[in-house]
């Protein structure tokens, strides 16, 4: 009966049915002797769906019943999508912590047979990513300024289009590009830290442009016009009015861009190579980094396999922590320093 005065399921029905179904499913599985958490979850969702649908159909009519069924399915799908995330965070923490130690963070792998730390990889990550940021941020920011402030015709449209294209470049192709470029100049087989930075820049520049453009676009026009009205030249208007207004957003966007590329593996695998000792000069010789370190500890474990795997996980954990901190700080900066625009 789905008339206006028709019945409605009681408020507790949704949670009640889930709980009851869980108990029922557990009992069924135990009786059949095939109990496991995964099966319990699947069966609970299934029983809940059947019970909710039948009950609601009797009391509320087919349309409400379908609504409840779909809602349940969407929530279940969301839960399903959540499982890998939780598993990932949990496993990385569990398996990464045993390998983390002071030695891991302060010593290189040089002179340790199948051991040592990842200091050389940490240094490499910072140098390579730092150099990539040094290339990408000025170029990306100026290009974003060009798009929003000068907005010029054909070049602007071409730039917008090709930045879209650049966003889609697979990271390994960016690595191959850097290799191809340097191999033409220095001959084949070349491996340098700066090659990695160039490869990462190809990936980072479009992110910097996109995020900066978004932020610059929302700087209100009346601020610019007020500045022009005072006789300020355009470039000083940009430097003194537009950029400071957008400051928090720009910093946030750049940190997120750095977070996005700091964990890249593939492009560095083909450009910076693998090495055991600390090298902080991007223009000379091979350079290790955290992601490649994690990969090579997994791919070519030493005599003590488990110790190598522990180090791979420790490197993965370090990377995730760096990325999380960058994201968090970016958000905090944005909230603390953003300019209220009215």
């Amino acid at each position: 009966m789905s008339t206006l005065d028709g019945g409605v399921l009681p408020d507790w029905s949704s949670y009640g049915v889930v709980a009851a179904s869980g108990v029922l499913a557990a009992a069924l599985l135990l009786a059949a002797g095939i109990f496991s958490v995964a099966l319990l979850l699947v069966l609970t969702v299934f029983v809940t769906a059947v019970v909710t649908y039948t009950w609601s159909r009797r009391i509320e009519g087919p349309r409400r019943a379908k609504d409840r069924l779909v809602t349940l399915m969407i929530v279940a799908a969301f839960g399903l999508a959540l499982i890998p995330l939780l598993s990932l965070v949990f496993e990385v923490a569990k398996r990464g912590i045993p390998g983390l130690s002071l030695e891991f963070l302060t010593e290189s792998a040089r002179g340790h047979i199948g051991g040592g730390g990842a200091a050389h990889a940490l240094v490499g990550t910072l140098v390579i990513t730092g150099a990539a940021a040094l290339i990408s941020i000025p170029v990306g920011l100026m290009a974003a300024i060009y798009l929003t402030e000068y907005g010029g015709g054909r070049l602007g449209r071409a730039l917008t289009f090709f930045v879209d294209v650049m966003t889609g470049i697979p990271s390994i192709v960016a690595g191959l590009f850097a290799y191809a470029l340097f191999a033409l100049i220095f001959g084949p087989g070349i491996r340098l830290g700066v090659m990695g930075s160039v490869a990462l820049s190809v990936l980072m520049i479009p992110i910097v442009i996109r995020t900066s453009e978004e932020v610059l676009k929302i700087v209100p026009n009346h601020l610019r016009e007020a500045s022009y009205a005072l006789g300020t030249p355009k470039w000083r208007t940009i430097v003194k009015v537009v950029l400071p207004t957008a400051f928090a957003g720009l910093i946030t966007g750049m940190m997120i861009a750095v977070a996005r590329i700091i964990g890249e593996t593939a492009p560095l695998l083909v450009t910076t190579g693998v090495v055991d000792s600390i090298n902080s000069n991007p223009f000379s010789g091979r350079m290790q980094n955290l992601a490649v370190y994690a990969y090579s500890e997994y791919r070519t474990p030493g005599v003590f396999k488990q110790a190598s795997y522990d180090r791979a996980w420790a490197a993965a954990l370090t990377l995730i922590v760096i990325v999380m901190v960058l994201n968090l700080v970016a958000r905090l900066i944005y909230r603390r320093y953003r300019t209220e625009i009215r």
Partner: protein
Amino acid sequence: MRFVAGSGKIGDRIFSNLAVGAAITILALLGGVAAFLLIQAMPAVSASPSELPGGKSLIDYIAPLAFGTVLAATIAVVLAVPLAVAVALFISHIAPRKLLLPLGYMVDLLAAVPSIVYGLWGIFVLGPAAVGPMEWLEQKLGFIPFFEGPASVTGRTMLVAGLVLTVMILPIVSAVAREVFSQTPRKLQEGALALGATRWEMIRMTVLPFGKSSIISGAMLGLGRALGETMAVTIILSVSGIVTFNLISQANPSTIAANIALDFPESTGLAINTLIASGLVLFAITLVTNLAARAIVARQNIQ
């Protein structure tokens, strides 16, 4: 004309030249990517088959890899899109308001997890966990070519690689869909509800039609990501260079990106040119995918 102070004129010119210079630099960079890859790929194109790795012609070398690339990415998209639409609907229309901020942060974080971490998770956690279910698939659904088996006992299969790619592209696909779902005109939604529609009927009649093109373009963007994803596949797949639709066996085709990552560090000479040529093919495939996605969005925006 604006009135500009004398000193500002030079500054203005320098600054605008810098901006134009940056724009041109980026276009040159992208042109450089295509040009240098082409230059380095040419030797492999013109070489005779006997000189190439495996003694096969370039097309025979790349074709199985391209097949593996498309297969892995297709699995990921087929599994990720329905899930992503559900996640997007949950966040935009079903979740309680106070959950929105933490949910948004979580999706951001998922998108930022480095691919090497997904790879390690796939080989150490998901792979072993998938062995049992894959044996079940072989026994119960073995008549479908996908699950022909024999099921791998290590979990290093195309199916596991596809599942990891699914998890990796889920955030981007759902982010694109959610963005548009939450822009569905309020008056349409409230109109539907006022006419007595249930929430699902309202979603089906207003939100989904409105967001249809965003689902398609999100799927294409996800496809582009999955095609180019390297490390997760490199770590998980055990490669045997065959072409098969069998998703759960030990013998798998590799993908272009994974093949480059595996072979490049040890390659010299013509082998490197061959790998770069395969990278060029990958670039072309992802380019077409991404352009198609943009075209769909652009057409929708005009309407």
